[in-house]
């Protein structure tokens, strides 16, 4: 119970500070919009082309947006050494991770839901027929990005070449998530949308494995 109540308090803090500063959301939304608009005008794809490479483009944009979002996740706790204050205050250090990954997943999901209609219009790909399924895939993919990224953000925040280290560690680890998310998304953008439960199951397994690892070893990532 202490874990959940601490997580809820910390999630509230994450949301409050973000909506007050709008630091992460503004950056990621603008970044993703720029990519989607730029590619739309550069390639001027037909509907079939959009369905073929659109999902890959979307998830690539999400990946870069996530790495932008995840970089300051623990870094800003170092400005005033607030991470130490959190470590002294919470009973279970996993609450710190849990709150951060919940906040990152929410922020990422928010930008994705905001972007999907723009993508649909610019690339002429209808999404309404499979919108709830798309949101589910986006959620599972975002969770994968966030779990891995939050853990690596904690590691890289304490390293010297931190700006370089996070993407260097993150990109190879996230390749399976990106493949699964792209495949699941592609199957939902065809004229007869199909939910690929195999890829969704893979995402679920990935999320559970990394979440468990974070729960078991997260405390060590916060130590000096």
């Amino acid at each position: 119970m202490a874990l959940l109540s601490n997580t809820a308090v910390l999630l509230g803090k994450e949301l409050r500070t973000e909506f007050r500063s709008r630091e992460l959301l503004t950056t990621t939304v603008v970044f993703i919009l720029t990519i989607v608009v730029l590619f739309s005008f550069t390639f001027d794809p037909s509907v079939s082309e959009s369905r073929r490479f659109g999902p890959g483009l979307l998830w690539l944009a999400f990946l870069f947006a996530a790495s932008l979002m995840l970089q300051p996740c623990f870094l800003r706790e170092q400005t005033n050494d607030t991470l130490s204050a959190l470590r002294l205050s919470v009973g279970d250090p996993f609450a710190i991770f849990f709150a951060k990954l919940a906040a990152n997943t929410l922020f990422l999901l928010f930008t994705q839901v905001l972007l999907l209609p723009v993508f649909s219009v610019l690339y002429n790909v209808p999404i309404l027929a499979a919108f709830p399924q798309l949101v589910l895939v986006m959620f599972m993919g975002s969770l994968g990005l966030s779990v891995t990224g939050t853990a690596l953000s904690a590691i890289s925040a304490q390293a010297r070449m931190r700006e370089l280290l996070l993407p260097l560690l993150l990109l190879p680890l996230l390749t399976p998530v990106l493949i699964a998310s792209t495949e699941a998304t592609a199957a939902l953008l065809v004229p007869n949308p199909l939910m690929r439960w195999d890829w969704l199951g893979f995402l679920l397994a990935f999320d559970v494995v990394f979440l468990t690892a974070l729960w078991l070893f997260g405390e060590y990532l916060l130590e000096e």
Partner: protein
Amino acid sequence: MTPTSFSPTGIRFEKIDKRYGGLYALRRVSLEIVPGECVALAGRNGSGKTTLLRIAARLARPSAGAVSFLNGRGESGGTPAAGFVAHATMVYDELTAEENLLLFARLQGIAEPTARAEALLTEVGLLERRNSLVRTFSRGMRQRVAIARALLNEPAVILFDEPATGLDPQGVSWFAQTLKGLRDSCRTILMSVHGESEVSSLATRAIRLDAGSVVADTQTGANFRSILAFANA
């Protein structure tokens, strides 16, 4: 300071080593701080003061040795509530003074967090600025919020890492008064200091670290001032 309910607690450091790679930040440090003592840790930059404080706060693990807390009878056991005030404020700039205190009070499971936050804001003289963002505060005001945060759980042990650094003379006087109140309420205080000052003069014992080792340790007396003065050299 508000009358509080806590058990007097001391700290025992036993043969503490702390290495960062091949570099020793602390080397075989053994100390016993009795309940209610106010100890000034002096030493040059890099002598190991901050590391020792962070180990006492359980924010860093020693590479060797052990730290334990002692009850009033001198027996070790348990991990009591310890307040830690570092040189960094350890509060969020994007939250108000009250939001910061409420956040940490809720995380620590303090009953009636709003009342506790209000009482501490009154004590540190920031009640009128409770709804102002911390980023709009001066260094001295931030330090007051930091002290209020450290006192939320009524700690028996308080650790200060160069608490007066960056404060103006008025701020130093305020801090010295606060420290005196804490010392007189029988809390155990361990603080790192830079040289002799209004703050360090409140200590009842001075310890000097050099290159990670304890090189002098004395109660009040002639040697006391020389230990603090040496740190300024």
